């Protein structure tokens, strides 16, 4: 392990994340992990890491950091106008950096969250099998917290690239976000409102973090006979919870059990789109069946495999 990054200014919410922690759910420890795993995986592949390496996730405003040892880095996800030593640099490509270089990321002007990968992966102690930061539980990542000015991050060992890599295209993050979702698990509490839920645009409010995204819009009412809350049940990222008041909350990666009913569940391959949602964006839920969702899942897995093949060739 080598000292790799010296954080000069942390940005709004910068954390160490990998693909998440699945084996402690039953202890009340949520999955955590990078919210836009699509951008996170690509960042890792661009610097020659496996998809599972730990990266930095920055939200809304990026970090300013000094490079402490030679490395390749890649910046993907939301556009944050990155600069190296004051000169603009590209995202979605590998960048060779040298000790003393200063990387600066600004405010996101397309999307919300940016991933930064570095040769060998960001090295932090593994907690319950993962490097991901769980902010609510103060565990994992770098000392269980968001990064702060003065933090020194290490990286793992890994070879520098022989030739630079870049992705020949990159996703844009529209302000109208279409999220494919399957009704349920508690759609039987909302008989009269399912059609309305799937045909109404909602607006992302400022109450959005790694735990969930609260939406504004016309309230979704439960059936008259349905209870306001239920005995707590396991929940997963993508559940769309309808609390008292009827304003939906899309659950993200920092909860394990909940006592509200979920009208629908966003499919797993669209979670990254929510990770890029920022206050003011509009969310449209598009209903599909489990069979359709599984077909899309297989196609998406094939798409990711093709990108991996392209970048690791």
């Amino acid at each position, binding site marked *: 392990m080598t000292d790799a990054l010296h954080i000069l200014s942390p940005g709004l919410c910068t954390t160490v994340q990998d693909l998440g922690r*699945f*084996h*402690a*759910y*039953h*202890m*009340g*420890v949520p999955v955590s992990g990078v919210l836009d795993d699509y951008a996170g995986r690509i960042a890792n592949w661009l610097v020659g890491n496996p998809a599972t390496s730990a990266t930095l996730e920055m939200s809304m405003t990026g970090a300013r950091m000094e490079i402490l040892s030679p490395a390749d880095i890649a910046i993907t996800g939301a556009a944050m106008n990155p600069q190296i030593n004051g000169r603009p640099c590209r995202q979605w490509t590998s960048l060779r950096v040298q000790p003393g270089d200063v990387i600066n990321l600004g405010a996101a002007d397309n999307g919300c969250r940016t991933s930064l990968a570095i040769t060998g992966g960001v090295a932090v102690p593994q*907690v*319950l099998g993962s490097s991901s930061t769980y902010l*609510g*539980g*103060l*565990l994992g990542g770098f000392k269980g917290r968001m990064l702060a000015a003065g933090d020194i991050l290490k990286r793992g060992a890994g070879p520098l690239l022989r030739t630079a890599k870049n992705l020949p295209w990159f996703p844009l993050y529209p302000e109208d976000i279409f999220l494919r*979702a*399957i*009704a*349920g*698990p*508690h759609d039987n509490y909302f008989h009269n409102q399912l059609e309305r839920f799937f045909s109404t645009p909602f607006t992302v409010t400022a109450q959005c973090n790694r735990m969930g995204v609260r939406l504004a819009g016309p309230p979704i009412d439960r059936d008259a006979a349905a209870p306001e809350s239920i*005995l*707590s*049940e*396991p929940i*997963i990222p*993508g*559940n769309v919870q309808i609390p008292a008041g009827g304003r939906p909350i899309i659950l993200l990666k920092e*909860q*394990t*059990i909940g006592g509200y009913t*979920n009208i629908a*569940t*966003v*499919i*797993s*391959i669209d979670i990254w789109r929510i990770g890029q949602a920022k206050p003011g964006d509009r969310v449209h839920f598009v209903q599909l069946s*489990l069979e359709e*969702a*599984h077909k*899309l*899942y*297989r196609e998406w*897995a094939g798409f990711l495999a093709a990108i991996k093949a392209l970048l690791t060739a």
Partner: protein
Amino acid sequence: METEFRICGDRSLLAVYGSGIDQAVNEKVRRMAALLTGHPHPGIDAVVGSYCTLLLYYNPLQVGYQELTTLLLSLEKTLSQAAIAETRTVDIPVRYGGAFGPDIDFVAQHNGIRTDEVIALHSAADYYIYAIGFAPGFCYLGGLDPRLQVPRLTTPRQNVSAGSVGIAGSQTGVYPLASPGGWRLIGRTPLRLFAPERQQPLLYQAGDTIRFRPISEDEFLHIHHLEKP
């Protein structure tokens, strides 16, 4: 009740084994979870239980929904022959009252009993762990004596110390980590209930029974010292 399966997105399914706060239903959930984790099945990435429901998180590239419901139904048939997972009674030392439990007098007054009766009643019961969640190691416990029920605080505290033991409505529980909270606090345990660096991060699991044991301030400080990470 016949087991009900519910689709929960493209990567998980919920199996519902009953309704209400019912120890027999919860035991079924727990034993199904033990069967599934005892013999890992390809494609099942996580198994989580709660009061009446079991969630399987799966990989659709490896296993389908129908295949999982069939597996669950066939495992359910073997439940009666399956070895009953061992459960334990876990002793949790608690220093009641004073600065450790600033609301204990309120709990006593609210219920028209003396403070020492609050301690006696709270530490006499066996509390069954129905589920763990909300926060790492937080237990949803059954078994609170109705004579100890109190409404939660109208304004939650900004910072409740780790280990605080509280009551809200018909529930009692322990805050495993420091956090904001609205429960009425009656005591505090010096044990670190959740310590991710330990080989067994949690001192208990769902299905176990918790018993609170009153301790002196000296004993609290002694155990607290031993528990330092």
